[in-house]
């Protein structure tokens, strides 16, 4: 945990410094968490909702934060859980069969006015969206965010070995998809 985070946590636990410390925390982590969430839910509006919910949850559970875990992995963990809960709630609301979730996310991507990638970038995102949920998370966190397996293990509650295997399978499937749809 870096020095700044320790200062933020110490201030968050003091009533008179809490507001300012929380503001610092939001400014420091909002972008990183936003992009993590955006890659899970795809759409900007949804990502905005989930990011707000994430920080509100953080605000509510500051007292539950245990200092042996790092602030960064704790925040990622809450953001990941909020994103997955959001997708599950959507699934329930629209009575979507499991297979159609990925189709729904691809449609979300197609209609997203804030997607500015070229054709090949779109194809890569499509390939990622066709992965099972866990592999998709692992691939995004490793490939784009370049997160260490040890940190990822804390965020996703999964062993490093299992994460490496997930990443291996994910890259293999993406490669196959990119080859097949050329």
């Amino acid at each position, binding site marked *: 945990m870096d020095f700044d985070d320790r200062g933020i946590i110490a201030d968050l636990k003091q009533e008179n410094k809490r507001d300012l410390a*929380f*503001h610092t925390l*939001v*400014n420091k982590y*909002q*972008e990183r968490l*936003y*992009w993590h969430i*955006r*890659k899970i839910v795809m759409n*900007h509006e949804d990502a*905005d909702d989930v*990011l*707000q919910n994430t*920080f*509100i949850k953080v*605000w*509510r559970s500051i007292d539950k934060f245990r200092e042996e875990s790092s602030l960064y992995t704790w925040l990622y963990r809450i953001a990941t859980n909020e994103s997955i809960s959001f997708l599950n709630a959507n699934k329930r609301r629209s009575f979507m069969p499991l297979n159609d979730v990925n189709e729904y996310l691809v449609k979300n991507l197609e209609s*997203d006015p*804030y*997607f*500015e*990638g*070229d054709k*090949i*970038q*779109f194809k*890569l*995102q499509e390939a990622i969206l066709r992965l099972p949920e866990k592999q998709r998370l692992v691939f995004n966190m490793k*490939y*784009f965010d370049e997160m260490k397996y040890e940190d990822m293990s804390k965020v996703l509650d999964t062993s490093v070995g299992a994460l490496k295997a997930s990443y291996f399978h994910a*890259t*293999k499937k*993406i*490669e196959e998809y*990119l*080859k097949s749809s*050329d």
Partner: protein
Amino acid sequence: MDNLRENTPELSKIKKENPFRVPENYFDDFSARLQMKIEAEKKVVPAPKNRIIQMLKPAIGLAASFVLIFMLVYWPLKTFSPKQVAENNDSIVIEEYDNENEYLNLLESIDENSFYALLDEPVKSVEFSDEELMSYINTNISEYEIYLGTDF
């Protein structure tokens, strides 16, 4: 990384960049929007408890009046109605007959007034003929009991 390039040549061709964008000034405004939500959250926190009590108030009132009616009307009626008292007494008697000291218990089960009334009654001399005695013995006492009661 080299390993990745070898195994996934197609993926390696794609430039690693973020293809997504956000509306202008999104991150500048986000903090302020969130702050408003947090302020609202601070005010809302104690409300759920009160709201639940407010919602349950009529139900609690209704439940309390039912309990009161039960305590004042139904329960005394049920407990002190003559039929119920009689049933209660019967059950006591039945239980007590099972007891070894049935005589004593029988005396106890007679209420005080009737006990004194019995004492005040003039003692009548009981007279009966030999035939009456014999027929009483024949009908109520077995030969075995007579045998047991006879002193040799």
